[in-house]
């Protein structure tokens, strides 16, 4: 788990992180981007416990709890705090564990570090970090108590099925040393060497033993009070296991103390075997790692110096970028469409110009064609006139011999007629010749000679005249008169 994500554990002298299977110190500046965790000393924190109705939403719960914290928990309304809480569903209502740290205190604490800290992603009291154990290293056995004792702080914390349900600060080695009046190192040495077994102490140290036991007895009493208090809410009979974290080890003889106060629980070391790194670092690192992965773990974060979100993670900036991209998209399409419009307008201008030029040229050609057509019509007309003229001239010329011959033709007509009249001894009282085509004659003959008229007609027909007819035949005084019409 620790390998998966590097967590920077902020300690006073230098930060640490877990890498390559071991704990390594780090340069804060170079690892400033890592998720940073800070364990807050219990003496800097304020605690309070309230009960709130189940109907409250998380938001309401937070507000109401905060109000009560200020009102009943001793927070100064003139000061600014970072507040967090853990809610426990105890059936009819919520039991809410409230935690707070004054911001100025937090800042002071941070400033007391040997390096400048720019962001704290997770700030929490150590006792809550033990919950991480149940997620990774330890199988929970119902109600468990973790007894933590270290140089500067000490606490007991209760867990139900691996979930935090309560805690109590107890005397650290430093406090014990002050109360007993000996050096802190001496107390630690005695406890590590002899535990809490009277028989392990020499006569010289017996005084110290008695003093230490007196201090610890009060803390055990407090612990029993805590257990009894929480028993009412979480309805358990007894604490199944007491796990001791005294620098990762157990404290020999502690079970007897608890037994004396009615807690007949099995007392074991926090780890069956030593963890890969000291529990002091391991447990906060593991906890921070699990919290940073948003695992199902109780999270308390009292950081007054939260890491400022990277601008890239700002939702409002995402929204701004979304609007910008949207506008950019619309603007792009707008620019493209404007370009298209201008392009088309230009095309229209060009095509219009081209059309006008072509049309003008075409109209000139049409005009030229019309003129040519008109010229052609005139020429055709002229040619026709010339043809007619030529035809007339040719006809005239061709007819000339015939025209010149009209006299002879007329004379022949007359001679033929006169010959025939002479042959049949016919007299004529009138002769009317129309050109060389037709002739009317009034023939006179005696009655004995009247057959001559018929013979005359026959002769004329034989001579090739197309029509010879007679009419108005009269007979008067023995003389026949007959009008004969001869056509050529």
């Amino acid at each position, binding site marked *: 788990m620790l390998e998966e994500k590097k967590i920077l554990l902020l300690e006073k002298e230098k930060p640490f992180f877990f890498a390559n299977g071991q704990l390594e110190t780090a340069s804060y500046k170079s690892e400033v981007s890592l998720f940073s965790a800070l364990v807050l000393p219990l003496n800097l924190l304020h605690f309070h416990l309230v009960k709130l109705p189940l109907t409250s939403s998380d938001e309401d719960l937070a507000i109401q709890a905060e109000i009560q914290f200020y009102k009943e928990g001793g927070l100064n309304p003139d000061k600014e705090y970072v507040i967090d809480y853990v809610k426990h569903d105890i059936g009819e209502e919520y039991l809410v564990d409230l935690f707070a740290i004054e911001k100025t205190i937090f800042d002071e604490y941070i400033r007391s570090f040997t390096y400048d800290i720019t962001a704290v992603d997770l700030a929490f009291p150590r006792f809550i970090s033990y919950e991480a154990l149940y997620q990774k290293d330890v199988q929970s056995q119902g109600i468990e108590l973790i007894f933590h004792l270290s140089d500067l702080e000490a606490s007991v914390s209760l867990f139900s099925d691996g979930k935090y349900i309560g805690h109590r600060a107890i005397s650290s080695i430093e406090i014990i040393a002050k109360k007993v009046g000996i050096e802190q190192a001496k107390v630690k040495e005695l406890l590590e060497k002899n535990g809490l077994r009277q028989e392990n102490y020499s006569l010289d140290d017996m005084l110290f033993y008695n003093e230490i036991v007196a201090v610890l007895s009060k803390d055990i009493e407090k612990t029993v009070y805590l257990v009894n208090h929480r028993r009412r809410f979480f309805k358990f009979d007894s604490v199944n296991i007491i796990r001791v974290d005294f620098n990762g080890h157990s404290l020999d003889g502690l079970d007897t103390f608890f037994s004396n106060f009615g807690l007949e629980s099995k007392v074991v070391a926090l780890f069956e075997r030593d963890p890969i790194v000291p529990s002091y670092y391991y447990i906060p690192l593991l906890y921070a790692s699990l919290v940073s992965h948003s695992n199902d773990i109780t999270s308390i974060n009292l950081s007054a110096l939260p890491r400022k979100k990277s601008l890239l993670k700002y939702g*409002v900036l995402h929204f701004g970028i979304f609007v910008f991209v949207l506008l950019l998209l619309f603007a792009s399409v707008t620019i493209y469409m404007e370009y298209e419009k201008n392009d*088309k307008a230009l095309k229209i201008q060009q095509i219009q110009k081209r059309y006008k030029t072509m049309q003008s040229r075409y109209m000139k050609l049409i005009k030229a064609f019309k003129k040519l057509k008109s010229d052609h019509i005139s020429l055709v007309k002229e040619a026709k006139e010339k043809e007619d003229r030529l035809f007339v*001239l040719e006809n005239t010329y061709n007819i000339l011999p015939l*025209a010149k011959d009209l006299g002879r033709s007329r*004379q022949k007509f007359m001679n033929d007629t006169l010959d025939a009249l002479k042959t049949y001894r016919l007299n*004529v009282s009138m002769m009317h010749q129309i050109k060389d085509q037709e002739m009317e004659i009034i023939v006179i003959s005696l009655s004995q000679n009247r057959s001559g008229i018929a013979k005359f007609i026959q002769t004329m027909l034989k001579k090739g005249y197309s029509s010879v007819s007679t009419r108005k035949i009269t007979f008067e005084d023995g003389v026949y008169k007959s009008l004969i019409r001869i056509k050529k």
Partner: protein
Amino acid sequence: MRERLDELEERFEALDKKQKIALYLVTFGFLGVAWFYFYFDDAQTDLELQEQKIEQFQRKIQKINFKKINKKILTKKSAILEEKSHIAKLKSEIYHMEQKLQSERFLWVTQKGVATFVDRMLESSLNQNLLIEDIAIKDYNATYIGILKGQIEMNVTAQGDFLNIVHFLRSMEESVMLMGLSSVVVETNGTKPLLHTNIKFYGIEK
């Protein structure tokens, strides 16, 4: 600046997921609708109108067929040349024909020719012993054949023997001028035959 941004971020993050989605959708919808309504719709219409105008001009341009009109012009020019050539040929032929007709100009009636004709006619009447009773000469204008026109008409009335009349008519027809006896009437009523003849002299119209 950063504080203002943080404030905005805080307010933004205070929205739940559904509200954020709604904000995104509403913004998109609002900007989209506004853009569509105030710009895109009109621009699209403008583009369509421009496209239609371009197509309209293209269709007009397509209708202009230079090849066709040039071909027609060439054809017409060729026809004109052909016609001109034809006319030139006709002119030449007309000229030739007019020249030919001109060579026959002695046929056409003239005042002098008519006077000569009357002289000879009178002389012939004396020879044939005819008594000319009347000679009437007048202008006459009627198309005969082609460009030949009757130009002078002469009516002659004479009395004499029939055979003399026949000879008299023949002598008149010996004139070189183009003429014809359009009507010859000889009648007798127990007396000497009386001749009424109508003579037409022809010329060509100029």
